[in-house]
């Protein structure tokens, strides 16, 4: 039983990454109608920016948590301005192909310079408060030894996810955004700069991916292909949760992390496939996803 608690907690940790990434995808899809295949590459860029900040400029983890998402977010906004905006109104397939191509290019460039094995990025060891050295070390919870950093990941991503949900579903800015997706012409008539809002939204989604990248840098290594593996799972999460649903993607992200964790315990060989089996089942029963709206 103790082992089971531990597996549930470990599942939640992975679920945090799924939730952060699928949330960004959902925001982008919901507002821009673009299936952002470059999400994994941008997640990887977030981790690399953190790595450069530390090793080139000596800027540590905490500032990187803010700087990296902004830097990658700006990169994303440039992509949106220069390329993605021309695809507005076209079939989803065009956006998918464009972002997929971008992902291959970005990953290829990083791989060319950094190879395929990872670069180490240490867990932050500051600030030092009492016996705690930043987020290093761990706590004995009785049923398991929980690395403090992983606990931090769960709490922090939960806050970010709920904050994003609040921003989009409960604030005036969010209302504008949602309205702009429904009927851009009408919103423009009220004097709101819709294209700029779309660009900022894409930047926000991309920034979430980069944030997940920084969070994962100390756990997984900083690798050019780190996004490639995770993005497939995240797409399955989005499909299960329902395309474009903010809360749906958050809940599904965490839930699938837990389900995957349990699979690793009961039948490890299937842990890479369980998410896709679930996806198939959900698509058969409810093609719009668990919380999705019919298109």
């Amino acid at each position: 039983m103790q082992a089971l608690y531990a597996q549930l907690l470990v599942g939640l940790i992975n679920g945090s990454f799924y939730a952060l990434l699928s949330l960004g995808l959902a925001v982008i899809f919901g507002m821009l109608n673009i299936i952002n295949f470059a999400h994994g590459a941008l997640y990887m860029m977030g981790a690399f920016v953190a790595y450069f900040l530390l090793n080139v400029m000596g800027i540590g983890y905490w500032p990187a948590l803010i700087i990296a998402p902004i830097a990658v977010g700006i990169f994303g906004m440039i992509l949106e301005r220069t390329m993605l905006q021309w695809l507005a109104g076209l079939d989803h397939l065009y956006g998918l192909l464009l972002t997929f191509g971008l992902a291959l290019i970005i990953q290829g460039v990083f791989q060319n310079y950094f190879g395929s094995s990872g670069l180490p990025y240490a867990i932050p060891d500051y600030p030092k408060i009492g016996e705690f050295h930043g987020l290093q070390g761990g706590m004995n919870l009785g049923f398991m030894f929980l690395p403090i950093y992983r606990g931090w990941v769960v709490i922090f991503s939960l806050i970010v996810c709920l904050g994003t949900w609040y921003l989009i579903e409960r604030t005036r800015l969010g209302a504008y955004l949602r309205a702009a997706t429904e009927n851009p012409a009408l919103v423009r008539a009220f004097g709101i700069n819709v294209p700029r809002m779309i660009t900022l939204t894409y930047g926000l989604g991309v920034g979430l991916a980069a944030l997940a990248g920084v969070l994962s840098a100390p756990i997984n290594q900083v690798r050019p292909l780190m996004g490639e593996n995770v993005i497939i799972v995240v797409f399955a999460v989005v499909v299960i949760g329902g395309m474009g649903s903010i809360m749906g993607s958050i809940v599904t992200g965490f839930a699938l992390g837990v389900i995957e964790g349990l699979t690793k315990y009961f039948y490890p060989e299937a842990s890479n496939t369980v998410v896709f089996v679930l996806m198939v089942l959900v698509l058969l029963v409810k093609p719009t996803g668990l919380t999705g709206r019919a298109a």
Partner: protein
Amino acid sequence: MKTKNKIVTALLLGTALSLASAGFAAAQDKTVKIGALSDQSGLYADLGGPGSTLAAQMAVEDSGLIAKGWKIDIISGDHQNKPDIGTAIARQWFDVDKVDAIVDVPNSGVALAVNNVIKEKNGVYINSGAATSDLTNAQCSPNTVHWTYDTYMLAHTTGQALVKAGGDSWFFLTADYAFGAALERDTTAVILANGGKIVGGVKHPLNTSDFSSFLLQAQSSKAKIIGLANAGGDTTNAIKQAAEFGIVKGGQKLAALLLFLTDVKAIGLETAQGLNFTETFYWDLNDQTRAFSKKFAARMKNSAPPTMVQAGVYSGLLHYFKALDALGGNPHDGVKVVEKMKSMPTEDPLFGKGEIQPNGRTIHSAYLFEVKKPSESKGPWDFYKLIGTVSGDQAFTPLAESKCAMLKK
């Protein structure tokens, strides 16, 4: 009349010419084409991949055959760790590109599949990248030479040393494909033979990024040793995350049964220090390995010195070229060339003296290393401390134990 004579002369001349050129071809065909088949972009790309192609190129340059009028081409392919892609490339190379030899081929699953194609096409297979000892045992082939290392060697060096040092209960984290299975099998045999026991194990999918669930299971098994029967990115992730979960601090020891130079770089000395493992080549072994590695690193994009897999590609090919030189030309007959390779003792700057056994296994020394502490490391790739040398006949499968069918003639 005159015209008729002319025709006869022309015919005779033509026949003579074609006879001459046919004879020329048989005696002195000095063209060779080599295919470097590897994982060019995945989790094994840094330990083989583009570096192995470079090593092959350097072997051509250092063989001295170009000066003797040989024409040697090297092509490379990406098998993406998929056996079907690997065999498709190998078939195309033999059928269309007329490749003579295939080198490198990390990933035991792909390596075994390609082994069959090469035997069928009568090519030459100098494998340096794959670990499975089956290549020279149950699945041995007259076309295959297995260089560098194998699972038997890893089990009988690292595995044996750990059991003898008191690590008598093991829990395995095993990559779920041919390589992991072979390494677990060979190591288990050694553990049981030395009085140890296996308390459990998990098979994880290849290319896993999160090991925490598996590590928790290993932790609760209370085994003294957690044996990592995996490689490349899987091993580095497992080791890093084990440190995070306080496994080593809790008194359990990690056995990295297969660890490459690039893996240690990825883990970082802070976490990797103290790990014991075995390799058959390290860039800083002696003056010759240092000289080669310096030349190699200067041509690598990330200035990395060669791993043992890449070094094995180099010295395996050097030996292949020696055999071709001794034959006086390329017979384009894989079995014949491999027989010649087996008949000559191996000697090169990287692996020293050795031999190729009748089952295709190359025998050379193996070295037990320990990862240095960060304070002991003097340079960007100064990672290993030599703690012991195992002679080739001690490290590799004795012929009497080999299950190779070719030995039972």
